[in-house]
Each structure stands twice: as structure tokens, then as C-alpha cells.
């Protein structure tokens, strides 16, 4: 291996330096994902994060800039003010992931992903899961 030493030592050094930069950069680029019970009651946070939960029935109201609603994880409720028109699939009760900032009272989001769930519809419009189908 001696003949490669001149090559290996700078290469390892370079990799270490690059690796250091990479990890430092990684820390800054992390987007945290939280649920309402981790957010409700906490002070404002300047860092962007993602908030996931179900749209609470009866809270949706359209605004000039987009839509206001509340999301819940079953334990806590957080108010969301979303900028941009919501997708067709957006409705009460659906799971969403919004990304934005928390000002201590309202989560201001500018990006929304509708969670695609694997639920199935029964003939009368209800929902059944694969384990709860008629005839089984």
C-alpha cells in the first residue's frame, strides 16, 4: 500500500473536509415534521417545519389569499392560514401536510400536500378498510 500513500492521505483529507461541509449543510437543510400536539402551546418558531394532521370539520373558510382551517392529531388543534388555492382533493376531514412557520398562534403555510390514503368507499358512500369489507 506504500506506493499509494501519497495519493491516499490527501484523498482521505479531502473526503473528511467535504464530509464536514456536507454534514454542516445537512443540518441547515433539515425540515422537521411535527404534529399539532407537539406544536400547540409552544412559542413562535422562525424555522420552517412541516405540520401534519387532519383538517377539522367545520373550520374551513376561504380567504382572499387562500384558505384558513385547523388541523388536529386527535389530541390538540392548531390553526392554519394557508396561502395559495387548495387542491381539488382538499376537504374537511382529509389528512394534510402543510409547510411554513409557526407564529405562536397560527401556522402560516405556503405549501400543502394532501395525504393520499388507501381507504375504500362502500356503496352507500361510507368508508371501509380492506379488513372490514362486506362479506368477510
Amino acid at each position: 500500500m506504500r506506493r499509494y500513500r501519497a495519493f491516499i492521505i490527501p484523498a482521505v483529507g479531502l473526503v473528511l473536509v467535504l464530509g464536514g461541509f456536507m454534514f454542516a449543510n445537512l443540518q441547515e437543510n433539515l425540515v422537521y415534521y411535527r404534529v399539532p400536539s407537539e406544536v400547540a402551546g409552544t412559542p413562535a418558531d422562525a424555522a420552517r417545519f412541516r405540520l401534519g394532521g387532519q383538517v377539522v370539520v367545520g373550520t374551513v373558510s376561504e380567504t382572499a389569499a387562500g384558505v384558513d382551517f385547523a388541523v388536529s392529531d386527535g389530541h390538540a388543534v392548531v390553526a392554519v392560514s394557508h396561502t395559495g388555492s387548495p387542491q381539488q382533493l382538499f376537504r374537511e376531514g382529509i389528512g394534510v401536510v402543510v409547510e411554513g412557520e409557526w407564529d405562536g398562534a397560527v401556522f402560516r403555510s405556503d405549501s400543502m400536500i394532501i395525504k393520499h390514503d388507501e381507504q375504500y368507499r362502500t356503496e352507500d358512500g361510507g368508508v371501509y378498510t380492506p379488513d372490514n369489507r362486506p362479506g368477510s
Partner: protein
Amino acid sequence: MTALTGYAGVIVALVSAGTLAYTGARVFVADGDDAPRRLAPPVWGVVAGAVLAMGALQWGLLTDDFSIRYVAEHHSSGTPLLFTVAAAWGALEGSIVLWGLVLAGFTAWVLWGVSAGDRIGAGALAVMGLIAVFFFGLMATAANPFETLAQAPVDGLGANPLLQNHVLMAIHPPMLYLGYVGLSVPFAFAISALAAGDGSTSWLARTHRSTLVAWSFLSLGIVLGGWWSYEVLGWGGYWAWDPVENASFLPWLTATAFIHSAVVQRRRGMLQAWNVALVISTFALTILGTFLTRSGVVASVHSFTQSAVGPALLGFLLVILVGGFGLFAMRAHLVASSPRLDSLASREGLFLANNLLLALFAFVVLVGTMYPLLVEAFAGDRVSVGAPWFDRAAVPIALVLLLAMGLGPVAPYRRARAAVLWERLRTPLQAAAVLTAAAAVLGTRSLTVLLALFLASLIVASIARLLHTSARKRDERYPTAVAALFTSDPGFWGGMVAHVGIALLAVGIAFSGSYDTRTEITLAPGESAAFDGYTLTYVEPFVRAASNRVEFGAEIELSRGGDRLGTLRPRLNDYENQVQAIPTPAVRTGVREDVYLSLVRIDGETSAVTLDAYRFPLMWVLWMGGLVVFAGGVWSFAGTRRRRRVEVDAEPVDA
């Protein structure tokens, strides 16, 4: 009955795989004594079992046999034929059946090349047998596709709508699996050669073709996956550094590195230990990819519900890593020695640079992919690494890789003198400079895009020059000479075709990624809006019923400066039995750019439509590049067969 037949197939394959592993190991210890005769029965057992299992699954789907749980959950009687067939790999259990079938096929291919006294081949078959034991074991237990229901429902639930929304979904998984599973062949041979203490390059020569097949299909599978994402998901892109996308990209990177370093080992006898490490890593990464996609640890359209499959795959991954690298460490002294590098400025020096860059690329992607999982496991926080981080890391690495690709094929082995390089690169550099300057004059301002264009045109021009000068040297008419070159060294020229494909991909990615625009537009029926030089006119909303879904959307007329370009129908597909409708974008592909419309919403009362309108320049160059890469891989493979046949015939029988 169908379920029973299928399960019997799984058991036959499982037992045969166990026999294959055991007999293979015995034959290996007995120095390959009588290998083909002793190993053929278990191999054909695995093949027969796998075919029976897949056949039964298909039969169950085609005959609407809803007493099988898998069929009831992933198929419905209204599903069109194509997606009925494709449903066999549209979900977890079925995809493992496909995996088993492909593995059986590759095992039979390995058997075909095994002769009496072939110790390494017998050992490789034993390793393939062990892999098959794992996958058929999964089918027999945790991921049984033939589980039956006590009472069959009248109709099934239908496939995941995202998966039955586009024809590509029927093709993309088999392509990807041909790639993934094919990479187990070089792994099996490397392990067998290590166990035998064989430090020669014979395992490389023997796995050359299967590696090329696997690599070509993996490349095609990745590009088709991106295409599907672009055509179906409607978020306006083809690649998001999603963990599942990375899972397919990681083994591609290391397999690409392996294909190149294998050339160095065959030509110059170097990088032997590195090759073994690459092959073990590549196979481990395919299993890691399967774990990521199939265990539910990451949320994605590709991942299915959590099951015992996850821990089983994780365990298997550990076995491969510990077993593979453990054996590698024990035998390191056999594979370590190698002739020295004469000069870094040489073909092999550039191959080395290419390998280090590809390995670095793979490492970066691996860190970004695994970091959120590790943070969640150890700190409990759920995080994701943003796509900008990957872009920032990937772009510089990719650019340097393109530079190495431009220089490599024209650099001589051993030592490249500057004068020789200059002579070979002068014209291509001029051509690339002229093209890049033209692009800059025409309004391309991004330095990264210009650099990518320059390097890509350097790659293409230097290959064109090489082809031209080599053809001129031959005593044939020019077209005949070009054709003769391609057939005389298909390994090299196939590789060059793949390089051209990568150059096209780079140009497509650079332009579409840097000059895309997006606008949200809301229109009432009859209204028009301007979008980047185009005019979008909302004609009317529509509702259409198809056999398995109802489509509703907006008819948008696209025109540019008075010319009618066509009608686009971005829509939502509402599948029977599904709560949510699936958005489907409409794309108009043009020479200069794609216009891509994604339906955001249609107001129920006023019929006003909100659209996400995107413009992506040069998208077709990207897809074309993917197909060219595949064509290059296939040409390398098809050509080497012809050549190797001749060599084999020329060898004495008793060698």
C-alpha cells in the same frame, strides 16, 4: 384451487432453493465435481416453482378469483386487462413473486454457463440458492400472496389508483426488478470467488454480461420511473430525491462504477479489491432499496403497509453486509495486490477518478436518504432532508463526472501525454465552445447550465471525432467502416452510446431544471389567459366515464400567437371504490419545451378552474437520453455475446 397451486409453487421453489444452496455448497467443496448434472434439478425446481407461483397469481387475477386476499385487495372486475396483469406486481406480496421469478430466470442463466469441474460457478449457484431461499421464504410466510379469505367478496377493491393511472406503471417495475435482481449475479460470483480464494479475473469475465443486462434495465427502470412521476403525479417534476427514488439510484451509481472499474481490472489487472467491495455494496444497496420501499419506514407512493417483511429484509441486509464484507476481510490478502498506476493522467487514472466520484455521489445520496431514518431512530424527531441539499451536492459531482466522461475515452492507457490529449481534444473543445457560446448568445445565462452544455457537447464531440478518425483508418467505405467499428468492439462502442445518452440526460436535466416556470391560473369557462407566450383558453369542463373510473376535468385550448396547438385535458380520475380522486396532468411535448397543466380544482357551482401551469424546456431530450443509455447497454451486451461465443469455441475443451 388457484391459491393452492400457487402456494405449492412457492413451496416447490423454496425447497428447491434450499436444495440448490446445499448441493451447490457440496459441489463447491468437491471442486465442482459433476456440477451441471447435480445442480440442474434444483435450479429447474426453482424456475418451475416461480413460474407456477406467478402463473397462479396471474390466473387468479384474470379469472377474478376474489377468494384470494391479494386479488380481492388489488384487483376489481372492472380493471382493464393491462392493469389486471400489472396488478401482479402492484403491491407488496405480488412484487416479491415477480422478484422470485426474475431471480429464478437469472439462476437458470448462471446454470447455463456452468460446466463440469466449475467450482466458482457451483458456489455462485449456492449463493443464488440462498438468496432464493430468503425470497421464497418471505412468500411462504410474511408476504404470502396466496392467503385466502373465508368468504369471497363479490368484487375486489381494485389496484392502487396511482398505479393504474398510466401504462408506464405496468412496465416500470419489471424493468427495475430485472436490474435489481440481475445485480445478484456478480455478487454471487464475487462471493464464490472469495470463498474459493480465487484471485483471478475469471469471475469478472463471467458476470460481465449479466451485469450489463442488469445495469441496462436498471437505467431504463429509473428513467421510466421519472417519466411516470412526471406524467402521473402532477406535482410538476420527475425527480424529488424521494427516499424511494434514491433507493433505485444508489445501486445504479455503484453498478456504474463497477462496470468501469471492471474494465480496468480486465485490461490492467488493477482495482481488484475495489471491484469486490463495489459488487458487495451494490447488492447490499439493492436490498436496502427493497427494504426502504417495501417496509413502510418511509412514507411514499411506493411504500405499502407495514408488515413483518421489513424486519426480515433488514435482517437479510445485515447478513449480506456482515457475511460479504467479513469474507472480504478474511480474503483481503488474496485480492489486494495489483500492478501500480503509471500515471494519474491516463485512461485508468480517469477510470479511478470516475469511480471515486461515483462512490462519493453514492455516499452523499446514502447519507441524505438514511439521515432522517437515523435521526428518527435515535432522537425521535421526524425530519426530512430537502431536495435543495441533494441538488447542491449532486450538481458539482455530476459536472466533474461529465468532465471525466469527456476525457476518459480519448485518454490512452498507462500514460496520456499532453500533446496526444490536445490533438484528440482540440476539435471537440472547439465544437463545444461554439455551441456553448451560441447558447449564451441566445439567452442562456445560468453558469451551471452553460457548463453542463459545454461538457455534454464535449463528450458527444469527442466520441464523434473518435468514431470518425477510427473509421477513416479502415480500408472500407465510410458507412461500412462505421458499422464495422460498432460490431468489432461492441463493449466499447456500446459504452460510448451510453455516454452520449448520459450527455443528453445532463442537458435535459440542466435546462428543464433551471428554466422551468410555474404559474397558478384561475379561469372561468370561455376565458383566456396568457402563459409564457402561450394562450390558454378554458373551453369547458367535462365528465367522462370509463370502465373503471370517472374522469372529470377541464378542456383547455393551447395556442401560441394565433396558432392553435391543441387541446389539453388536465383532469381528476375518480376510481370506483376509492375515496380520493387522482389528479392527472396533461402535457404537450414540443421541440423547445413542454407545457404541463395540472388541475388544482374546479369550482362546483361556477365551473371556474384553477390550474398549475408549468413550462419545462427540452424535456424530450431527457427521456431520449434515458433510452439512448439503455440502447448503449443493450448494444454492449448483444455484441459481447457474439464475441465471446467465438472465443469459447476457440478454446480447447479441456481448459
